[in-house]
């Protein structure tokens, strides 16, 4: 099992959710986050004064999938979130040791 973490533009959330739903993935956790990557924020001028926007609002999506579904899941996320511009975001893939469904104690892929 793998945990896929995607940091995306907020306005791309609906597209990514739809894409995941399209491949049969309904379960996910979503966070409102702020941060920056290589983009490192930017400067805005307001009334003649420079104003630093260093922590940019993004959305983080977490999905845990079986190993064999990692590739199609990542593709769905990347395709849906990509605009080709700086700031589109990142995807991280992390190993998951175990999953347990609290309701009935199912484990492994069956708990996803």
């Amino acid at each position, binding site marked *: 099992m793998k945990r896929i973490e995607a940091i995306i533009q*907020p*306005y791309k959330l609906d597209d990514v959710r739809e894409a995941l739903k399209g491949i049969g993935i309904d379960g996910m956790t979503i966070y409102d986050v702020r941060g920056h990557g290589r983009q490192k924020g930017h400067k805005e*001028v307001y*009334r*003649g004064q420079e*104003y630093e926007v260093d*922590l940019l609002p993004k959305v983080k999506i977490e999905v845990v999938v079986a190993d064999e579904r990692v590739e199609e899941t990542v593709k769905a996320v990347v395709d849906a979130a990509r605009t080709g511009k700086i*700031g589109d975001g990142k995807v991280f893939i992390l190993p998951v040791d175990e999953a347990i469904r609290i309701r009935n104690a199912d484990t492994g892929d069956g708990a996803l």
Partner: protein
Amino acid sequence: MWDLSTFHTQSMERINSAFFENGDGLAAVAARSQTVDEIVRGYIDQYVPEERQEGFAALAVGGYGRAQLFPFSDVDLLFLVRSEAEARERKDDIATLLTALWDANLRVSQSVRTPAECVRLAPDNSELHISMLDTRFLTGDRALYEDLASNRLPAFFAKERKTLLTSLVEMARQRHKTFNNTIYHLEPDIKEGPGGLRDLQLACWLSQLAHVTSDRIPGSEEFIPADFRDALAEGKRFLFAARCYLHYFSSRDNNRLAFDLQDSIADASAGASGQQRRSAADWMREYYRNVRVIDRLALRMMDEFGVQRNSLFAILRDRTSKLSNQDFSVAHGRVFFRYSQAAEQDPAILLRMFRFVARHGLPLALKTERLATAALDAFRGYVNSAPDGLWNEVADMLRQPHAYEAMTALHETGALFVLFPELEQIDCLVIRDFYHRYTVDEHSFQAIRRLKTLQDDEDALTKRFARLLAEVERPERLMLALLYHDVGKGGSGEEDHAVRSLHLLDHALERLRVPSRDAEPVRFLVESHLAMSNYITKRDISDPETIREFVDLVGTRERLRALTLMTYADTAAVNPKAMTAWRKELLWQLYLSTFNRLTANAEDRRIESDSAAPVLALGANDAERDGLRRFLKGFPLRYLRTQSPEQIKVHYEMRRELAEKSAIVHVERRDQLYDVAVVAWDRPFLFASLCGAMAGFGLNIERAEAFANEEGVILDTFSVAMSESRGGEMDETEMRSLARTLKRVVDGREDVRNVLSKRKKLFGPRGRMPIEPEVAFDNEASSRASIFHVIAEDRTGLLFDLTSAFSHHGYDIEVVLIETQGRKAIDVFYVVGPGGKLSEDECRELTDQLRGACRSKAA
């Protein structure tokens, strides 16, 4: 052997059946208390020999002491023992009893104390003492109990009254705070929430403590104010039944009225009372009506008894009595009518009263509320027959710092729906939503509250929005829009609720006779109140195309500011945690990008035929329409967006009158300010001369805009205030004198420096921190002009000095946007030289000169 478990289970089933038959919660809790009494008494009498009952008594305390045991509530027992030594001797008896009670499925909370321990003040455990106000004898040594109940406890409560009252009220305030001090939660806590069962009991405890004597504790409801008793009895009946249902449906001590349980209870209560089935929304409306009574009583009593008389708070509160005027007196921090017949004889006084509350934030006295409610028919007659509408009065109320408190007072007296009948559609309306915490009406009031308290927030991100609010010219428009933005949620149908809200708003605008210059911005805000939220979550706000679209939607910086604040307030009022740093940053980003685009482009874009169509339609014939077209040609698009068609028509008439004259001046009073419009043939130093002349006349320029058309006609508009040193006001003679002075200055018959020199140089009061000038130029944003931003400490003649700096170089000021916030002047100038935009070097040189002008003390 007596089977406690079976007895308890069978009794509970019997009580349960009876309750679902008759819906009588009061009877159900009394019946369960009686059952538990029988169990405790029966067990002790059967298993503890009589000789061991001497010096030992079992007492019921808390809710059980009041004989109000809800189906799954804990059973609070106090074992009273004569001495600590005897407590040790009884240890086994008590342990055996507790085990038996637990085995019988009773959840017991117990304590073992001597009489002396019961009356020893524990400063950190006021709840323990308060629970003893409701002590009831069950079995054992009655003489031991009587000594406690009749002698020790009254003496203790009489002695510690102030400490306990203060502590009790402080705990209640903290509890209310966790519910954001409102009863209007969508899924309320029926026990702990404001107006819930805890508050019902709080009112009883406060009245008991306030009237306790050293030989007697009053009955629980003995000193409840007489005018509350009936409503309180009804509220109690309703809440007791509701909590019983909650316990039964949840099979546990659950007090949160979740959405699914609201459905079940609405169904079940209708069945039990034989009434027609009600919707959960209707049942919740009844819930809020009942809880509102309890909440108001609890708040009044907290205010009355919560603070010791000689405390600093009481002294400060009594100072509010100085706010008394010819209509109202203020006593103990509450508002009273000077004459009790006032509301009946002069219904207009009610509106003055709500404005008084909005200004000072003081609550109405109970008597005032009652008199106001009794005068509602007269008030309705007054509101419906006001010949000029009541917009000026309503606007004054809405722009005051405590508009939220005024809304609450309007709601409590019933006057809210007289003044704003459309709001009745969302009265206590529950719309189920995962994120929303409050009823629709309360959400709207909370949105107003959020804006009014914006400046109190220390968060750096929030402060940006607070600064924005300080720049809003007529905040009452924004407040009216917040009041009506969700009123359409009360209707049904396919239409978007914003469309329905707009429709209902139109009724209100007509009834209140809101002039179009105020009405249109309010309509825009209500119609567009969801737009900004949608843009920040659904659109790429870093995309210039998105910003261009949004610029087209908002049109002007004034609308953008108001819509940004509307979105902030609307989001923040969803629930206390909804306005996250994440959302604030996104909202600010959209504001910023749009503001910059508007500053850069909107003033660049010139009026075209299609955008001027609504104004051209005002022309009576082709010749007049042609004239209007020529007048508008060359003005920036901003002119159409900031002026109403009626104002544009006035300016056009001034242009027609201008002909061979050098200038036409129009001065008009508007509330505390004066609108000055000047139409003249353009010439160098014109705008600077006008600014100087007005400063010389003793006027402070709050806002100004300057435009020029292709005919070489300039239109300069000013909002000005007469300085306090000149009395703060102009009469008709002075207004005419101002117009003459401005004309003479434009004609060149009077040198503006002479006018200005008559004026004493004014600076801010000494000792204040000076405002360091900020001057910057932007040569990229506009394709036509160089833009100069100036922020500086305002002073007499500042604008004259700044604009003269441009004119000395022979530069034209194409557009000027002037704002004044307290001591701070915020000015933007769009400047062109003979060859169009200035060079970078020219901009830098001018920037230095402007900075020098800001620091200069000579006007």
